[in-house]
């Protein structure tokens, strides 16, 4: 039980989950109001065996294991996250994810590619470019829309497979509405050179949480979109400005690098050394942009927790630039150093960061919450998997 050795002052998890009934202690049958206390006890020792088994099986099954592997990671993260001593339970299965991936491949992506291929065959070659030009924007729109649907559907699946004290979370509302909002916000974001991004992010977050349930109770969000992203704009401005400066610096470095290789004929010589140097410069640029985006990332986390409430209970995530930066920096090293095989460890670190810093204020009569009648979708998040966004969180 190396797990126990790593568990911080929060206490022996066995005590918390097990028999203490401490959380229920003040539970007189009539006035059952409780505070909510979150704890997260995931450890390297707990996630490492899962990571290693997943890595091995992913390789020998040519990645087919990934659905079951992801399920195991989630099960571990959920079950190490407790609210008032009772862990969350992840009830999803690898089969559900696998099935929905197959369905999406057969009925969504294959037809799309078939239509595109048939278009190439059937359209007269001289006019192909014309049709391609005309179809370009609708195709981009279709894929952005699908991406929005994928995000919404995947979240509904994960929530419906999350229970606490036997009661399901869930998501109602419309995937279509969310997807169009996300397409529209993306357009606005590009029109405003990125400045709409925080508002877009917060509005989409509001939309999702407004339709989120625990049992038969709905989460609450502010009435309107006004001022949602306000507190994140300072940090965003920092990220934006340094992103732009960094971009100019990168272009300057790029020009210098390429200039050196221009010899007779005026054509740059893109040999492998130059390409490596360019990629190194790009990496430096991304790291700089990453560093200056950290305050924004932390601000977003804080703000997202702030706008959501549940039956009068308000939430706070004590995220700040340096602690979050450390999580991201080490995660970057872990993922790069293991060629991606260490992803579950990185996911565990971010998940643990969020739930260790999640606090709730206010009391709630939990016992009065009844089961969510909506059992959620029958199968998982194939669309998200096809777009490679169906990871853990």
């Amino acid at each position, binding site marked *: 039980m190396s797990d126990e050795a790593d568990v911080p002052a929060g206490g022996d998890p066995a005590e918390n989950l097990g028999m203490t009934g401490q959380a229920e202690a003040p539970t007189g049958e009539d006035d059952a109001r409780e505070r909510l206390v979150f704890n997260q006890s995931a450890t390297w020792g707990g996630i490492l065996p899962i990571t290693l088994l997943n890595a091995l099986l992913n390789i*020998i099954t040519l990645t087919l294991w*990934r659905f079951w592997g992801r399920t195991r990671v989630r099960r571990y993260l959920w079950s190490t996250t407790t609210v008032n001593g009772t862990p969350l339970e992840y009830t999803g299965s690898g089969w559900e994810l696998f099935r929905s991936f197959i369905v999406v491949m057969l009925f969504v992506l294959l037809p799309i590619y078939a239509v595109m291929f048939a278009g190439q*065959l059937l359209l007269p070659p001289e006019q192909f470019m014309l049709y391609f*030009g005309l179809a370009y924007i609708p195709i981009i729109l279709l894929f952005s829309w699908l991406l929005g649907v994928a995000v919404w559907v995947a979240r509904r699946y994960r929530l419906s497979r999350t229970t606490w004290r036997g009661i399901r979370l869930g998501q109602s509302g419309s995937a279509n509405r969310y997807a169009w909002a996300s397409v529209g916000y993306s357009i606005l974001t590009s029109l405003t050179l990125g400045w709409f991004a925080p508002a877009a992010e917060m509005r989409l977050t509001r939309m999702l949480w407004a339709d989120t349930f625990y049992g038969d109770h709905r989460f609450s969000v502010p009435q309107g979109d006004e001022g949602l992203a306000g507190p994140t704009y300072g940090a965003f401005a920092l990220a934006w400005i340094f992103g732009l400066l960094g971009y100019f610096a990168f272009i300057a470095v790029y020009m210098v690098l390429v200039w050196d290789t221009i010899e007779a004929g005026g054509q740059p010589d893109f040999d492998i050394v130059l390409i490596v140097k360019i990629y190194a410069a790009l990496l430096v640029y991304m790291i700089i942009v990453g560093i200056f985006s950290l305050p924004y990332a932390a601000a977003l986390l804080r703000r997202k927790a702030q706008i959501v409430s549940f039956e009068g209970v308000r939430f706070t995530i004590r995220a700040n630039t340096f602690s979050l930066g450390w999580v991201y920096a080490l995660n970057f090293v872990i993922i790069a150093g293991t060629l991606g095989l260490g992803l579950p460890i990185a996911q565990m670190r971010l998940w643990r960061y969020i739930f260790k810093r999640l606090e709730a204020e206010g009391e709630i009569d939990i016992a009065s919450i009844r089961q969510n009648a909506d059992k959620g979708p029958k199968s998982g998040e194939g669309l998200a998997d096809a777009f490679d966004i169906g990871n853990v969180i």
Partner: protein
Amino acid sequence: MPSISAMSSDPTLITGLFADGDTARIHPVSVTVEDDRLALTGDSLRLFWRIKRLRRLPDRPDGSVVISETDSDARLSLDRENAARLRPLLPRLLDDRSIRRGTWMLGGSLTALAAGLAGFMVYGLPMLATPLAQAVPLDVEARLGARSNQFVAWFTDECETPDATQAALDELGDRLEAVSDSPFELKLRIVDAPFPNAFALPGGWIVVTDDLIDAMESPDELAGVLAHEAAHVAQRHVMAAQLREMGFGVLLEFLIGGGTGAGQEIARTGATLESLRHSRAAEAEADAYALAYLAAADMNPEALADFFDRMQSVFEDMEAEIEDAEAEGDSERTETRQERAEAWLRSTLRTHPDTTRRAEASRAAAAGLDWSGTPAMSNEDWAALGAVCETGVRVNDTAMERAADRIADALSTSTKDEADAEVGTRPEPEPE
């Protein structure tokens, strides 16, 4: 807490926490087995679960066991100690070995499924690709060819071949077409590109770069190369390769999804190597057919071997240049090492690494073939061919600009004439 630990110390009493699946309330319960039922007793509840309908959920990280009934949201959780007490009473349900067995079975079946899919991709698809390619209607392949040909036109600079030269080229094509039984008319084009190469597109298009012609020393070598490409056309290798790659691509995406993890990258690299292996097999087959065509068309059967020898010396020259550059730039060590690594990479990943072997093989096979000694093309025509791209290149600046031009062309009214003129060879083979 004290009362609970007092309860726990009784070795026969089994206690757990029960959530009824209807309200978000936790009930401490005691658990007993009564006949074929599991009885849960708490402060204000008593209920029974049929043991047959029990299911075990995955254990929690602390070793707690979670039990539920089929299709039920209710949960009974037992910590390690209490689970150990319940185990003798529910031996089937709480047998840990069955969980491990499940994992191995699942891992094993998935490995078998993956191996089956990979096997089909490696052995089944290539076997299917050739008959399938033969079954593709000619007009479909012709359309595909027109498409690919247009793409080549977008991304290379077209050489304006004078009519007389084109006629000489066409005559060469006609002779090879006659002996090759090609289902398509052979349509030869010369493009300006900074590398020596020749390739066949679907539908009978054969593209030769000016650098390749410059590297050759006789029209017979060109005939040898064209015979090789004609074999690709006649055997419908290009169609087979496209079908194989398409099937491969679809199956690969099915297998690995849209992901970018390490496993996915390994699978993709394997796929690339696999496709290289097949293109080599097709090359060898085309070499063999090419010799037969050359003999049948009374062209120099040794020309193919001559050409391979020449390409070999071109490669060697390129490598020598790299070595010279290394020798010169010895002052900067790290860079030299990088360059050496780069040279190694190039030689390893070359699509035609076995030029010498192909030269030997075709020279040996050519030894028994007759040839009257007539060159494949007159000296004047050959000289004119060599000058084609020096006089008549139409240069556009970038691929993007070319694409933009084509879009503008397509949008302008006289779409068809324009496009034909740009592609710049002869009327389209298929009706519109």
